[in-house]
């Protein structure tokens, strides 16, 4: 362990936040230099959950490595699998059937909704309002029940595979998704009433953690973090993939750049996801749910990169192949990694209590950062 001073030469105190901490949602260790209550510098110390997935995937076949990617950003597990499947399909030039594309998008949007709901509940909990956590989970339970019926698991689903999806949807899938949407639309107003319109909550998030658009571009920020600063970066809109090419939805952008703007971006994204699912849920085309692929996949020599939008931002899957059955090098460009690099800039000059608010609106999931 490196020697960390307790007091800097100027007399400022160095405190540890984490790695075990109720507010960091994962094992994130921060060294903050404070003068009284004001934060002067923040130094993240990550790597507590580094499992070297990239090195491990070099010895797993193209069908096997997808299972370890579910564990990276476990709240948007389907979208990680989707990215890997898209890259492999790009390399092998596989045509995915229409039915599978539509099912993939519906499942991805449900995952995005579940991830944002958990984010909302834990943000409110970190700021002291302990009840919204339960309300968020009440709706999230409906989504995990749908996932359990169709995909077989509640958290790390491994449903999307190269060529399509693993199995066809459950007969009750459409009915349950529609029931969930009715329930969700009736509750989103309550979410706004309880937390968004609360004066105390607004005082704790407005004007906190400002990130300008130029800084968002320079720090490589992505997802709702960057869209809250006015940067238009929704991969589903700019470089559409899968069934996103054929549907209508809006990209949500706020220009303020503070915590409240990032919060509102995610709240409105939830409503857009419902809109997307509504367009697709009744129009699932008939057909195959998986294209015919060989048992052992071998990508040709070359490099393949896929960009897609997870709940946290842009995920990049970069595969370098030398023609074998295992990848030569895989790199996962994680959204949390670049969002975390902007954290130091965002909290300088704020109080310790604001650190919680900024980290909550960045929506960091540490296994995604550490891989």
């Amino acid at each position, binding site marked *: *362990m*490196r020697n960390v001073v307790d007091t800097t030469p100027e007399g400022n105190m160095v405190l540890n936040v984490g790695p075990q901490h109720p507010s960091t949602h994962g094992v994130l260790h921060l060294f903050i230099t404070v003068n009284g209550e004001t934060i002067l510098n923040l130094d993240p110390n*990550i*790597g507590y959950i*580094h499992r*070297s997935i*990239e*090195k491990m995937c070099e*010895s*797993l076949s193209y069908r096997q490595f997808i299972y370890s990617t579910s564990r990276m950003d476990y709240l948007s597990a389907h979208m990680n699998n989707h990215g890997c499947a898209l890259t492999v399909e*790009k*390399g092998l030039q596989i045509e995915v059937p229409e039915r599978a594309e539509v099912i993939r998008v519906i499942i991805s949007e449900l995952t995005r909704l579940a991830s944002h709901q958990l984010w909302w509940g834990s943000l409110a909990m970190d700021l002291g309002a302990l009840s919204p956590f339960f309300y968020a989970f009440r709706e999230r339970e409906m989504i995990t029940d749908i996932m359990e019926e169709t995909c077989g698991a509640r958290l790390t689903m491994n449903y999307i595979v190269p060529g399509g999806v693993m199995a066809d949807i459950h007969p009750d899938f459409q009915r349950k998704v529609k029931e969930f949407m009715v329930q969700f639309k009736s509750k989103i107003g309550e979410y706004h009433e309880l937390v968004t319109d609360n004066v105390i909550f607004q005082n704790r998030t407005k004007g906190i953690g400002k990130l300008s658009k130029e*800084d968002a*571009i*320079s*720090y*490589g920020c*992505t997802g709702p973090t960057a869209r809250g600063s006015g*940067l*238009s*970066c929704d991969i589903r809109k*700019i*470089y559409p993939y899968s069934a996103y090419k054929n549907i209508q939805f809006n990209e949500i952008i706020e220009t303020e750049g503070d915590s409240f703007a990032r919060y509102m971006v995610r709240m409105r994204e939830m409503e857009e996801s419902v809109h997307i699912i509504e367009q697709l849920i009744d129009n699932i085309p008939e057909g195959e749910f998986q294209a015919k692929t060989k048992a052992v996949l071998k990508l040709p020599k*070359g*490099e*393949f*990169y896929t*960009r897609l939008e997870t709940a946290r931002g*842009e995920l*990049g899957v*970069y595969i*370098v192949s030398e023609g074998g059955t295992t990848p*030569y*090098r895989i*790199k996962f*460009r994680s959204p949390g*990694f*670049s969002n*975390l*690099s*902007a954290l130091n*800039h965002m909290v300088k000059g704020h109080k310790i209590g604001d650190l919680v608010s900024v980290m909550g609106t960045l929506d960091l999931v540490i296994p995604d950062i*550490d891989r």
Partner: protein
Amino acid sequence: MENEHLLNSLQTGFPEAAIAIGSDWPEMSIESTQLLEVIEKLKGSDKWDFDYLFCETCVDWKTHFTMVYHLSSTQYRHSMVLKAKVDREIPQIESVVKFYKTAEMLEREVYDLFGIQFLNHPDLRRLLLTEDWVGYPLRKDYHDPINMIKL
């Protein structure tokens, strides 16, 4: 700009570099010594305006390293790949932190896992592994009989 158009534009701008269309985007391969001036031109010029570095990584080809930079423009929405060849014996390359602040953590990760020294990096130290770790795990010749299991 479309890929073809961008490819022609880059070829006119950098006549001595090797540029081709890869699987998605134009790929430009340069030597590690030319990195800073190439990036300055790509970022600063109005017709390209590559201001968003969305991926920076390294690939170990056993005889040399290749640093791979994926750049994109938030204004024109075009992307490209920049590859710089780095010597294996003395792996050193300039840091691009002064152009893209996101490179600070990305380059620390590459240093941690591959051992490439980034010159003029403000704070080059290990990121994911502990301070006293010996070796660079993502290199192809890394052996660790205790921690690595051959599958």
